[in-house]
């Protein structure tokens, strides 16, 4: 099976989170999920954007610079700071993501009202196919008193959706009718258009409203002002009823001015049968009680194959290029300046270049995963996947979509972690991200094959199967434990999901999204990988015994070996407290593929070309494990495999966790993984050695 590392060796939101430029106009994009908000953000900012986590949370915020050339001959070029806030149905938040949105809007409202010259504007993104739902959120935003512009999206879908209240309505007429009813600028945008797509009009409207704010007709700021926190459901419902009535009034006004007696009224029966849309017809297959689950599993299988077998040749090619021509080139260059064969060459070629090579080999798998997820998301299938898999993940309090990264994790943990972005809530993303390292990636398989073949040659298949079963049990058990401890707030909520219409993914938008996400991985996770590789090289390059110079030292005499010897006693209760096993586990922290090579290196035998035929390496392993376990080598080998399964998958996965969730959860998870792996290994050995 292909390896996931290719062939390379070894709670409130402050202003700083939503402002990228101190004096620039602040623009917040607010809208419901799947209304085209992020596509609009990408169209406005291009590559001038980056992602950060909102302070004190794991909620990802995309911030960027919205730059326009002079909108007229007399206008100068303008830059605005813009934030793509998490999709939200309401400012009365029910998740940390929605809370970030509510806090940002209220913070803007306060700063706009209190500090002269610190202007800000909210662009409320309205889905033309679901006006009523979008208008409710707009009404809540308007209640805060922030200057407001409306961006109207999904007009192409509205025109063709046969049962939409806005079906067949001219976009210009709809925008004009809405603007007349709301009293604020309404701009049609087509973020996928190669042409302007309404972006200049949106810029003009935002600048005009910033200079001269207008109030939404029929909306007043309630007294006392709310702050986005649900405190009293009855009071909230009473206030919401006022907004529901306002929404109905606006919809009626728009319908009246468009002279289209809507086919789909909200409270009076039409008496007509439902007009089935294209999406309805597709859903008769994809959501069918019998076909829906097999289709979902087929989609997951395809993702699994893409991120393992399809990516492997590309990873291998990059690994060969880095380790071959690139390493030779750097070595030659160093020779020209007289730095060959020294520690400088070792650091640059065996440390830095190996680190860069590791990052580069991950690029294909990450790009493939981001592209595949983008296709699933843009096409509208991802929401269906959440619905189909809901039952399977409900016991863990997770969205059905969590099943997808968890299954992909059995191929490679890294793209699986990246795939957590499809989950709508930050706490669910974190919980899933903490469970993914427990899925047994393909890199661990080489270790299982080696040890199972060496210690249980007649039952190797059964032992390997048991490891995968243990992995599934660890994910389920870990999930249940976390839900009852650190994630008590993550509960199985009723699934009420808006299903977007199916549509063809837009290649240009998709390509931009993949480029930005891969770039974020390289810049944020890549640095950690490179630094770690350099530290590993340093440990191996510094001599502690014998007469050696830095960079020219056998592993047995290096600081690396000394550290391994220091760790070995800690592993003694698990039966594998020997230097060889400790060194292999240290190497395995970098990448699990190199554990077999590390064993071969430390026993000074040839690495077997096939792990199932361990040969002399197997004999050495049996001897040293038998010695360190008091004659219970088999139990010690099982314990070692369980340790490999349960501890940190690799430095790249760790770096990706840091990128997604920040240092604190990552370091905490690392500690729990190491402690958990040790406890499990000790348990397996202590029980196994007594049977």
């Amino acid at each position, binding site marked *: 099976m292909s390896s996931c590392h290719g062939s390379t060796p070894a709670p409130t939101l402050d202003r700083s989170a939503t402002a990228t430029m101190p004096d620039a106009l602040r623009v917040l994009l607010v809208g419901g999920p799947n209304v085209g908000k992020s596509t609009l953000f990408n169209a406005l900012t291009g590559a001038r954007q980056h992602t950060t986590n909102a302070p004190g949370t794991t909620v990802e915020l995309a911030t960027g610079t919205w730059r326009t050339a002079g909108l007229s001959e007399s206008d100068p070029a303008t830059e605005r700071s813009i934030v793509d806030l998490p999709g939200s149905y309401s400012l009365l938040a*029910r998740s940390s993501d929605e809370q970030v949105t509510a806090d940002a809007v209220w913070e803007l409202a306060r700063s706009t009202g209190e500090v002269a010259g610190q202007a800000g504007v909210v662009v409320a993104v309205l889905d033309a*196919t679901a006006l009523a*739902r979008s208008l*409710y959120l707009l009404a809540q935003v308007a209640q805060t008193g922030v200057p407001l512009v409306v961006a109207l999206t999904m007009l192409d879908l509205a025109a063709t959706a046969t049962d939409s209240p806005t079906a067949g309505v001219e976009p210009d007429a709809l925008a004009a009718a809405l603007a007349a009813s709301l009293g604020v600028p309404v701009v049609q945008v087509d973020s996928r258009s190669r042409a302007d797509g309404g972006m200049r009009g949106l810029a003009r409207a935002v600048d005009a409203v910033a200079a001269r704010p207008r109030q939404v007709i029929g909306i007043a700021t309630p007294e006392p002002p709310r702050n986005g926190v649900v405190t009293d459901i009855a009071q909230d419902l009473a206030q*919401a009823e006022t907004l529901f009535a306002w929404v109905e009034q606006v919809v009626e006004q728009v319908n009246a001015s468009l002279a289209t007696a809507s086919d789909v009224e909200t409270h009076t*029966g039409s008496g007509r*049968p439902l007009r*089935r849309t294209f999406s309805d017809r597709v859903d008769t297959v994809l959501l069918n009680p019998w076909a829906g689950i097999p289709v979902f599993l087929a989609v997951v299988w395809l993702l699994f194959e893409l991120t393992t077998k399809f990516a492997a040749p590309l990873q291998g090619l990059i690994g060969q290029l880095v380790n071959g021509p690139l390493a030779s080139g750097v070595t030659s260059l160093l020779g020209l300046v007289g730095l060959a064969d020294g520690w400088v060459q070792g650091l640059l070629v065996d440390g830095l270049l190996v680190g860069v090579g590791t990052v580069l080999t991950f690029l294909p798998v990450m790009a493939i995963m981001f592209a595949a997820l983008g296709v699933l998301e843009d096409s509208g299938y991802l929401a269906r996947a959440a619905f189909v898999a*809901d039952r399977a993940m409900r016991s863990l309090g997770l969205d059905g979509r969590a099943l997808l990264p968890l299954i992909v994790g059995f191929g490679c943990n890294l793209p699986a972690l990246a795939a957590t972005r499809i989950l709508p809530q930050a706490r669910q993303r974190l919980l899933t991200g903490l469970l993914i390292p427990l899925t047994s990636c393909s890199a661990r398989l080489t270790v299982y094959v080696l040890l199972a073949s060496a210690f249980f040659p007649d039952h190797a298949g059964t032992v390997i199967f048991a490891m995968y079963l243990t992995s599934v049990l660890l994910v389920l058990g870990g999930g249940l434990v976390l839900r009852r401890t650190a994630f008590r707030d993550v509960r199985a909520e009723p699934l009420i999901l808006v299903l977007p219409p199916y549509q063809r993914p837009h290649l240009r938008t998709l390509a931009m999204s993949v480029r930005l996400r891969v770039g974020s991985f390289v810049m944020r996770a890549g640095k950690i990988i490179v630094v770690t590789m350099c530290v590993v090289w340093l440990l191996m390059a510094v001599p502690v015994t014998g007469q050696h110079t830095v960079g020219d030292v056998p592993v047995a005499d290096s600081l690396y070996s000394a550290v391994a010897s220091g760790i070995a006693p800690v592993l003694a209760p698990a039966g594998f407290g020997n230097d060889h096993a400790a060194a292999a586990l240290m190497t395995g922290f970098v990448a699990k593929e190199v554990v077999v090579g590390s064993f071969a290196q430390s026993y000074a035998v040839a690495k077997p070309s096939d792990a199932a035929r361990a040969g002399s390496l197997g004999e050495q392993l049996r001897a040293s494990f038998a010695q360190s376990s008091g004659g219970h080598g088999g139990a010690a080998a099982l314990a070692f495999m369980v340790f490999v399964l349960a501890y940190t998958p690799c430095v790249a996965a760790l770096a990706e966790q840091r990128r997604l969730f920040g240092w604190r959860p990552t370091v905490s998870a690392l500690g729990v993984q190491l402690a958990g792996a040790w406890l499990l290994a000790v348990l397996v050995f202590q029980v196994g050695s007594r049977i």
Partner: protein
Amino acid sequence: MYRCCMTLPESPLGAELRVTGVRLPAADAFRLNEMGIRLGTLAHVTQHAAFGGRVIAVAGSRYALDGRTAALIDVEPVTRLA
């Protein structure tokens, strides 16, 4: 709470229905209201899914509801069922 003729999972595919009761916890019912499904709202069931899940059409939008949630929403037919 008043319970009308049937629940969503009991409703036939394609029939026009009016929401007459929502027996979810208050916070969940509130979110349902915010999303556009309220007492009196007209809906059609467009798809039966696994484990009692239902897809309903409301004002041009499609909402997926898991089986347990759907069973707590009461509806009545707007037109006489065949």
